[in-house]
């Protein structure tokens, strides 16, 4: 019997490609049930009083944007809809263009004023050191904001933040890996006793079950978490502004379903061929 290694793997590539292209072209979508961790994430933001200062850290790049950008978009909608004040930071150098474009699109929907309702502090290099610096003194970490290059104390929101993390109610990270949520937990969560939420890539999601619920109040895991969260945010966002995003995610999850079936089928067929071949030899 022929070995699986004799099989040209490009046939698998082709079937996989055709499957995904065909299903994406069909564009069907279906709602998903919401898991507890996502519900906790939503509830943690929802319960905060109006005007609370929330730090959002964008720790991702284009390679993980497929999973994290929908979560980030949903979170910004959720926070602004609930009239929270957002301090946006990045510990990944590739994140600032995403955050700038998201805020430029979403902030006007909620009449959010730059410097009062949200501020962008931009990228800070150094990974753990960056987080340690932010936790120790936000003013030392960012003497100026990044959008208009204004001094820290000239920005009303930053003045209200003060120097330490004391006035920040919640820290949310969109974490793609290192540095990310595990480093925020170590450098800021534990030291300054700040409530943490995270949106993570699928690869990092299993790690977070170890920290939930005591050191991490909730998390959005992978594209699944993003879809579930957007379903919840759709009810609070202004004028159905995330409906299109939600439907896009839902239709992607349906494609994902069939791709997973295909993967399981490949594992089963590969094993059947292997064991049949071994028996006959």
């Amino acid at each position: 019997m022929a070995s699986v290694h004799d099989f040209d793997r490009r046939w698998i590539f082709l079937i996989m490609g055709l499957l995904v292209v065909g299903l994406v072209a069909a564009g069907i979508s279906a709602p998903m049930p919401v898991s507890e961790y996502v519900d906790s994430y939503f509830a943690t933001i929802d319960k905060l009083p109006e005007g609370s200062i929330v730090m959002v850290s964008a720790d991702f790049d284009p390679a993980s944007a497929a999973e994290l950008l929908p979560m980030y978009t949903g979170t910004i909608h959720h926070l602004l809809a609930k009239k929270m004040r957002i301090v946006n930071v990045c510990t990944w150098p590739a994140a600032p263009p995403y955050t700038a474009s998201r805020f430029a699109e979403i902030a006007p929907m909620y009449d959010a004023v730059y410097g009062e309702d949200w501020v962008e502090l931009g990228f800070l290099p150094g990974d753990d050191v960056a987080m340690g610096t932010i936790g120790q003194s936000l003013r030392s970490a960012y003497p100026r904001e990044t959008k208009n290059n204004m001094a820290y104390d000239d920005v009303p929101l930053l003045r209200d933040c003060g120097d330490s993390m004391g006035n920040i109610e919640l820290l949310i990270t969109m974490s793609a890996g290192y540095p990310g949520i595990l480093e925020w937990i170590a450098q800021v969560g534990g030291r300054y006793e700040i409530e943490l939420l995270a949106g993570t890539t699928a690869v990092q999601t299993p790690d977070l079950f170890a920290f939930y619920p005591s050191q991490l109040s909730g998390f959005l895991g992978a594209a699944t978490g993003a879809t579930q969260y957007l379903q919840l945010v759709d009810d609070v966002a202004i004028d159905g502004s995330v409906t299109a995003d939600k439907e896009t995610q839902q239709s992607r999850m349906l494609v994902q379903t069939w791709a997973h079936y295909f993967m399981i089928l490949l594992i089963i067929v590969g094993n059947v061929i292997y064991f049949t071949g071994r028996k006959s030899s």
Partner: protein
Amino acid sequence: MFLALQDVASAPWFSLDLTGTPDISGAILYCFFTLAVFSFLYKDNPFYKLAEHVFVGLGTAYFTLQYYDEGILQPVYEYLFGEGGVIEKMETSGIVEIGGYSVDPVMALVFRGIAGLLAVMLVMRLFAPNSWMPRLPLAVMVGVYAALKMTGETQSKLVLFVGNMFKDPITNSNLLSWSELTAQPSWRIENWEAFFVFSKIVFFVGLLSALTHFIFTYRRTKVLAGISKVGVITLMITFGAMFGFTVLGRIALLIERVDEMKSYTASAYSLGPAPAAGQDPGVLSLMLTPPILISVIIIAVLALGIGIKKDGRANA
């Protein structure tokens, strides 16, 4: 970007405003580089090589700019010479705050000056690779990182972590129930007490045996080997879960790529003549959109390349 723009009426040829409708020239570049990378699945080829080298060049330049702006210009030049910087504070007899602590501006200047000097020593590596000078900034980096990691991680991932480890599964009896918002009741596990007791036993047995497997690595007695075996089983299931999530993540990336390509198949991006108002753009219009047109070109060039190679071999 993230929003699929299937129903775009018209798209500009070139626009730097990235919040509006994506421009056609950008769409062409976007689709070309996406498809050029995908062409690697067939085999290594000039399109992929071009994409690969552009990626390295652009990535290096982008990251360099970010590190230059936020890691050198801001903390050194702006900090010392910028508006409200240390030099200005020296002239106005002000106070500089470092980490919330008030410091004399001269001291601040000396401190950051030393950092500048050490940074220059690091650059010396370029000119004298075996010089001892780059060791000094390296030593600072290692000391700072090691201490920061050691203190932060020990507190959060050992002291607090172990404390919560025994608290969470016992006090949080609702860990397995999905929220009230769950659309499908089948996703819930009923609060069946015996099942939770069983789950917690599984948790503690798994945790202690996995820890035993990691820590007691010397002289494996029969009992220790048995416990270790249970630990290995726990870890294998954990790795299986990680594998399942990895598949989920990688496929999600692929789906997003294909979905993004789909958004550029709108008639607004077609390079063919614009259809009359109210008329169906037709198949030709679709064929002339960047994703399809570029796919056809790449496939044609690769097929032509195979043809030429085969001819060459036949003639040889």
